[in-house]
């Protein structure tokens, strides 16, 4: 019987998350983390923000961004602890905690973005 390894699937999720977060996050954090707090740009009012997040395409994009970014983090974090800090004896624990957090976070994202509409 062929043993199936989860590594290719995890790499695809890592790769998709890296691509999506690279494309979208710099602009988003520039606005929310810097431009709005420092008063360079007036932040959207509540009704405007709620209206934007009621859009199904925006919600779908946010779900993909959040979920895939979390899987990107989980994969890279696990390998960095393994190669960088050489924490090899805890490999299984680190894997369960990282991917587990990504699964929980994705579920939470689906739940919240379902409600926001």
């Amino acid at each position, binding site marked *: 019987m062929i043993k199936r390894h989860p590594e290719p699937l995890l790499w695809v999720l890592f790769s998709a998350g890296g691509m999506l977060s690279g494309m*979208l996050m710099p602009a988003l954090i520039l606005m929310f983390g810097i431009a709005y707090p420092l008063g360079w740009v007036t932040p959207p009012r509540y009704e405007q923000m*709620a209206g934007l997040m009621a859009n199904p395409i925006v919600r779908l994009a946010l779900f993909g961004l959040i979920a895939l970014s979390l899987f990107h983090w989980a994969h890279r974090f696990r390998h*960095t602890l393994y190669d960088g800090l050489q924490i090899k004896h805890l490999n299984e624990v680190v894997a369960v905690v990282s991917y587990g957090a990504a699964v929980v976070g994705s579920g939470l*994202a689906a739940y*919240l973005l379902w409600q926001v509409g």
Partner: protein
Amino acid sequence: MQAMHHGDLYTAYHPRWLRQPKNTYWWLEKPSYFAFILRELTCLPVAWFAVYLLLLTQAVIDSPAAYAQFMAWSASPWMILVNVVSFALLVFHAITFFVAAPQALIVHLGRTRVPGSLILIGHYAAWAAASVVVIWLLGRA
């Protein structure tokens, strides 16, 4: 040949590989090693900003007051510091990820292979377009 049957000539255990133990701080030895670890550590702001977006969504669900509180929290000095550092690391993440893309993405047009430089330019163009769309959407909201 007879000696082969004697248990004292070999051990049942797998021999240990000869591997020099590496210092835990090996990545401080060279700038290129440090850049590698810095690139790997960009996964932390990626996760942080995913959590930030979840908190924003929760605030929008809750109430206008929760949204105002979230925006005020974002404007606290510590949060600005965290997000400025995160922004720099996220830009580094985007650049290093797109630079690696031509090695993972082999595209053929007919019989000719699309050069890696063109694939890289395509990623940068898509990044610029995506950023414009994000800022335009937020500005229009």
